[in-house]
């Protein structure tokens, strides 16, 4: 079963269409997603600004990690749950959406950046914990993080718009390729989906 067929099937389930068509549930989940996004981005931005040496220069980095990271993680967990529900409500269209796809790729990049930071940079923190302006690679990690999350939020906001949706043709071939719109209709028809 292809992804297209699976998400098409998922969207036809009662739970998915019920959530999508609900009067309040969908809006409440989306609001929660946005509110926790602000919490997440706010704490991430404060931490990244510290790594960049642009804020809280006299607070040790480890102290900022200890005190802010729990909030960042909690907010991220809620965003994953609410984000999954939002995807579940409109699965096929989201899966084919070019901004959704970009956002997922950027999320992987952000995860990689976090992993690199914790595996390669953070173990050596003792040498720059109290530095007002941490070394170059630390600042680089902070700058990349800030840029990635900014792009992720912009992409997330754009998912709501249908400029590149499959039912809005004609589109450039490259767009139809990147959104799996090309041949999607016949794919789904042959699998009995719609």
């Amino acid at each position, binding site marked *: 079963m292809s992804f297209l067929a699976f998400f098409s099937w998922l969207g036809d389930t009662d739970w998915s269409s019920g959530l999508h068509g609900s009067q309040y549930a969908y809006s409440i989940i989306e*609001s929660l997603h946005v509110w926790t*996004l602000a919490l*997440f*981005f*706010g704490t991430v931005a404060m931490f990244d600004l510290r790594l960049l040496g642009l804020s809280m220069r006299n607070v040790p980095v480890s102290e900022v990690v200890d*005190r802010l990271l729990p909030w960042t993680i909690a907010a991220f967990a809620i965003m994953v749950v609410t984000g999954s529900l939002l995807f579940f409500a409109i699965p096929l269209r989201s899966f084919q959406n070019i901004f959704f796809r970009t956002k997922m790729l950027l999320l992987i990049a952000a995860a990689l950046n976090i992993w690199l930071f914790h595996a390669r940079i953070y173990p050596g923190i003792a040498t720059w914990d109290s530095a007002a302006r941490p070394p170059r690679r630390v600042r680089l990690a902070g700058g990349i993080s800030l840029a990635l999350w900014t792009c992720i939020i912009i992409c997330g906001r754009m998912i709501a718009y249908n400029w590149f949706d499959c039912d809005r043709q004609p589109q450039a071939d490259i767009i139809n390729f990147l959104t799996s719109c090309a041949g999607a209709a016949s794919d789904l028809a042959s699998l009995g989906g719609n």
Partner: protein
Amino acid sequence: MDLLAFFNWCYATPLAATIRESSWMFPVIEAVHLLGFGLTLGAVLMTELRLLGFGIDRQPLHKLAANAQPWLLGGITVMFASGIPLFISESMKAYYSFAFWVKMASLVMVLIYTFTLRRRITRTDSILDRPRLSRAMALMSLTLWFGVAWGGRWIGFS
């Protein structure tokens, strides 16, 4: 000029029309607006978490506040710079939206609080000797910011 006439006038400005006619301007400005809010909330949390007893505590409150202040002002500036164009492009919808008025009421209250009382209590650390009061202050501030965000998101649903 009454309020409705003012909203009408905003709606009729060339900038508002340009934003309405463009397919991408509103979404892009909206994304910037959202980022501005995130930055603002982050800067606010630096002191509010401390007042709640969860924040960075090896640093005096007034220093934390001073560190966060430029980012708070920057975030608020971004929010206004992006929020005003968003507002004028759909001011007639806003006028009849309950969520919009919830947002404006919360915004006015939280801005007044931020630039008067909050500025005063974060100038020294004496408020920390009264944990219940400091917690109440932080909760009030965060509740109002929550109202701003909730109302803002809900304008789009109405």
